[in-house]
């Protein structure tokens, strides 16, 4: 399936076309399920003025946090700033614009963006700072606010396995925001642990159909863990 073979052989090719001031939708929750090599490539490219839509911004020296060091990010759309001192510092100092967005609203904004739904109502955030400037409307006597969807020039996604035409399978809680991010990029780039032949994945068990995926690269992952918590003996 030549027209459907989406595998690229290097990171330059994977992120080709990324330029200053673009919007990137990123999968991952904390450092779990993040496209490590794609982020490193964005750092190498040195593009500036990025808007990044991602639940977190990595940690101080890993994941998306690496892009904060070189001030590549103009704006973050995230639910959680904690556990990243530089993120918090740049936010409080005003160097970095942060659109604090409830986690479920963020997930739904990505999904809606990929699904052609420009806006939806949610009770989440009604009466809070999140609701400022947003329309409030009642349905069945309850108050909801209007939230608009997000899409990106690029989406960067981490999956466990991909076949060559971009069907994806995630592993455990490394799935998180990745399936929605995959749908919301004009160009969706996926970094995976393993690329398999077309036909090896069960059609009933594909988490992200290949139609959403433009480029696939096999990465190698450090998979840093934020909090190793062990069972007591």
């Amino acid at each position, binding site marked *: 399936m030549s027209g459907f073979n989406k595998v690229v052989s290097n990171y330059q090719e994977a992120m080709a076309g990324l330029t200053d001031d673009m919007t990137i939708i990123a999968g991952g*929750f*904390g*450092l*779990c*399920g993040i496209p490590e090599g794609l982020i490193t490539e964005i750092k190498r490219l040195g593009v500036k003025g990025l808007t990044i839509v991602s*639940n977190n911004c990595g940690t101080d020296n890993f994941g998306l946090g690496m892009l904060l060091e070189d001030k590549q990010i103009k704006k973050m759309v*995230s*639910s*959680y*700033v*904690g*556990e990243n001192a530089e993120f*918090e510092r740049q*936010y*409080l100092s005003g160097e970095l614009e942060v659109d*604090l967005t*409830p*986690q*479920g*609203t*963020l*997930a*739904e904004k*990505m*999904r809606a963006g990929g699904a052609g739904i420009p806006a939806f109502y*949610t*009770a*989440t*955030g*009604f*009466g*809070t*700072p*999140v609701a400022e400037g947003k329309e409030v409307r009642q349905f069945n006597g309850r108050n909801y606010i209007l939230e608009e969807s997000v899409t990106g020039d690029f989406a960067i996604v981490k999956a*466990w396995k991909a076949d060559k035409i971009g069907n994806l399978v995630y*592993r*455990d*809680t*490394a*799935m*998180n*925001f*990745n*399936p*929605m991010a995959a749908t919301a990029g004009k160009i969706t780039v996926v970094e995976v642990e393993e690329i398999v032949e077309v036909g090896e994945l069960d059609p009933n068990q594909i*988490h992200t159909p290949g139609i959403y995926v433009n480029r696939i690269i096999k990465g190698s992952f450090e*998979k*840093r*863990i*934020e*909090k*190793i*918590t*062990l*069972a*007591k003996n």
Partner: protein
Amino acid sequence: MSLNRDQIAMRVAQELEDGYYVNLGIGIPTLVANYVPNDIEVMLQSENGLLGIGPYPTEDQVDADMINAGKETVTAALGASIFSSAESFAMIRGGHVNLTVLGAFEVDQNGNIASYMIPGKLVKGMGGAMDLVAGADNIIVTMTHADKRDNSKLLENCSLPLTGVGCVKRIVTDLAVLEVKDGAFHLLERAPGVSVEEIQQKTAGKLVVPEHVPEMSFDA
């Protein structure tokens, strides 16, 4: 005596019912999992995409791909399911989770809750808390009754940016169990040895005290 963190968790655990799906926030709420009564079963939901949180892993079981919403390594319980963040919050926002337990900086007598930022000082972000308080029918807030300087955290009106409005139904503090309704805190139980007077003194919002306030019971 005021309750310690584990005792607060033990008291919250008494609110669990067999067959409940429960989301436990970071901190004291997480400890609730240790005190689920033996005769019931609950399934714990983690908003990063796991229904059925199992025990913490042994060293051999540690897997970077398996974490909870607090970013701690966990395992999957028997019967667990794993899904995307959109699906996870569909569950939460849609009211399918039976009980949410979370911490707070402040609550007020109208059921408002502030838990995600202290302007100019602390910005962690709301994470999934705003979705959880908007989505759950049944919310228990756990916190100390007052801060370290003895300022009450049970207020007439929250002073910090809100996480949600009119959503808190029940509060378990180190001093008391309270219900929030009709614009007041209703004292239901007091910690063993804690006087009604101390609770009154440390509750800045409107407090309704019935004639008899039983002590909490920790009989297993």
